[in-house]
């Protein structure tokens, strides 16, 4: 247990939307009316000590932070001075977790270890190991924030992950190292990352098409990427207002490796609250992959479209170029959605459980194709504009904490092209990032 005394208050800068939990206004603590009342009800002090408490909690090294505010006692007390005391309980030096997971015809055992505060300045080291019946994967990561400025941080990760993609009959094993710097610039958050990955691709089944079979083998990707995020929403799941803009670019090949491309993608979302607690939200996604040199792009770098988290009404990643039922992904895509979120009809469970649900009506559209880069931008835009896939429908959304959401929708896919796989009718989706 440690105590941190703060004698005088320095002005604390405001930070991003992860403040104030679910975006509700911070509540001011009620104080019993006493002679100290005038001083203690200084709202400025309350607000700033609450902010300081939030920032201490965000470091992830304290289990509990309590704030005590009292008038100054003692010899060197100022007449209007206040003593602000933060009483903190630290987390244990090493925490561990052990889970078993079952899903997708595979069972696995997951072991996690974490040092929340390794050298005393909120450095975090986490290790996760997953041993399954089919695949094993592991990850080791070191995270260090700049002391006093949590927004600036860097992390180093070493990992091995395996993924199975039945829509392309592809199995991918990635072993890699990455380092990443995060820093804020004015209102935006930037991330610079270098990543070196040894990728091994293989076929998931003997019936994989030859185009996928041709991509099997090993390759090394070494890439630099930069991402910029501006987020003024009040929450990342089911926001009521605000906008999000994320722009990401990745350049591979100039720092080694045998895969060479320039990849751009962006994500934009705008939310506005309407009458009666309903919210209208529009979002646009897009991206482009330009291979550099004469090697064609690899199936592991291309974009995929479709599914309950992007264009609803279509099967998972089942839009676009395909060969014998295996979807190969595309080098350019765009997708857009308009959603109207309303509370459940008749508002059951209002004020409690019912607030986690929302009904939603949506219209999604998108297109994915390969570009022939000799043609010129006009031809590209034309290709992306023809044969648009779109869908509309309605459903129920359940919010899970502040991270994920579940959806159950009834969809009507339209504009279906030959080769796309649709999922009309009821579709269930779970995830973090939805169109």
């Amino acid at each position, binding site marked *: 247990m440690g105590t941190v005394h703060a004698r005088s208050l320095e002005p604390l800068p405001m930070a991003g939307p992860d403040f104030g939990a679910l975006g509700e206004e911070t509540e001011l603590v009620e104080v019993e009316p006493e002679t100290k009342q005038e001083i203690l009800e200084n709202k400025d002090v309350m607000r700033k000590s609450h902010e300081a408490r939030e920032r201490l909690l965000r470091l992830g090294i304290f289990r509990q932070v309590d704030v005590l505010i009292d008038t100054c006692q003692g010899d060197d007390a100022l007449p209007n001075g206040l003593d602000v005391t933060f009483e903190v309980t630290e987390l244990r030096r090493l925490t561990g977790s052990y889970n078993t997971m079952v899903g997708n015809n595979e069972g696995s055992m997951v072991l996690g270890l974490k040092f929340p505060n390794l050298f005393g300045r909120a450095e975090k080291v986490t290790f996760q190991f997953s041993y399954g019946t089919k695949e094993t994967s592991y990850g080791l990561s070191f995270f260090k924030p700049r002391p006093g400025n949590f927004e600036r941080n860097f992390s180093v990760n070493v990992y091995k992950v395996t993924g199975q993609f039945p829509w392309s009959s592809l199995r991918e094993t990635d072993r890699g190292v990455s380092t990443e710097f995060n820093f804020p610039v004015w209102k935006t958050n930037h991330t610079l990352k270098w990543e070196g990955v040894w990728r091994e691709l293989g076929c998931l089944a003997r019936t994989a098409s030859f185009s996928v079979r041709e991509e*099997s*083998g090993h*390759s090394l990707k070494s890439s630099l990427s930069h991402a910029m995020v501006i987020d003024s929403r009040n929450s990342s799941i089911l926001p009521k207002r605000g906008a999000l803009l994320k722009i990401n670019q990745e350049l591979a090949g100039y720092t080694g490796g045998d895969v060479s491309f320039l990849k751009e993608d962006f994500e934009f979302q705008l939310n506005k609250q309407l009458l009666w607690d309903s919210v209208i939200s529009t979002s646009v996604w897009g991206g482009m992959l330009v291979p550099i040199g004469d090697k064609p792009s690899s199936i592991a770098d291309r974009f995929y479209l479709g599914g309950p988290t992007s264009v609803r009404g279509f099967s998972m990643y089942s839009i676009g170029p395909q060969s014998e039922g295996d979807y190969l992904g595309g080098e350019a895509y765009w997708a857009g959605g308009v959603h109207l979120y309303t509370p459940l009809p008749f508002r059951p469970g209002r004020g409690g459980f019912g607030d986690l649900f929302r009904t939603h009506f949506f219209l999604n559209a998108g297109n994915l194709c390969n570009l022939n880069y000799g043609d010129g931008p006009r031809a590209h835009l034309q290709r992306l504009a023809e044969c648009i896939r779109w869908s509309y429908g309605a459903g129920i959304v359940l919010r899970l904490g502040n991270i994920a959401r579940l959806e159950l929708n009834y969809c009507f896919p339209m504009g279906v092209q030959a080769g796309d796989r649709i999922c009309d009718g009821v579709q269930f989706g779970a995830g973090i990032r939805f169109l």
Partner: protein
Amino acid sequence: MCNLPIRVICRANAEYMSPSGKVPFIHVGNQVVSELGPIVQFVKAKGHSLSDGLDEVQKAEMKAYMELVNNMLLTAELYLQWCDDVTVEEITHPRYGSPYPWPLNRILSYQKQWEVRRKMKAIGWAGKTLEQVLEDVDQCCQALSQRLGTQPYFFNKQPTELDALVFGHLFTILTTQLITDELSEKVKNYSNLTAFCRRIEQQYFEGHDKDSCTVSVQSSKKSSLLK
């Protein structure tokens, strides 16, 4: 040899493309068939076969000789490439890792080396010295030479799968550049085998100049890829 139209393509990831992990493999229409045995079966099912004219006894004999070649010559080639330290360092590692950038070239060739050495240990060849291996090759060539005698092909006038297999291995041994020429010397000791190789090369591969270059490159790649 069956006069079927083929196109030979060299790919760095051919080993991984193959469904069983071994080359050579053929891609016909929608099907992919790998390794000599299944390829022969596949072609036979489509109505082409080189060994139709043989009776049961001869077919059994042919199978026995093919097994001998596989067990002896193939294993000796693998031993020489992956278990002989000098050859490994100077020839095999650079050749196997050439399509990949650093550090992947080292990682993959070491991975392959461990795999081959483990296999050698399993079949008992790990303890053999280079001289013993060369002795075995010599004995194998002697058996083949005796069977061939003065005939043009192993089974009289028509080539069979055995001829194709023996040609593949011997041609590769004769034309691949290694540190020493001991292995190819062993084969050259038997003049009827070298004449046999030359005859097949002239008849089937030198008809098209480009093809013979492709095939000789393919054959030398085969020796590093053939498992």
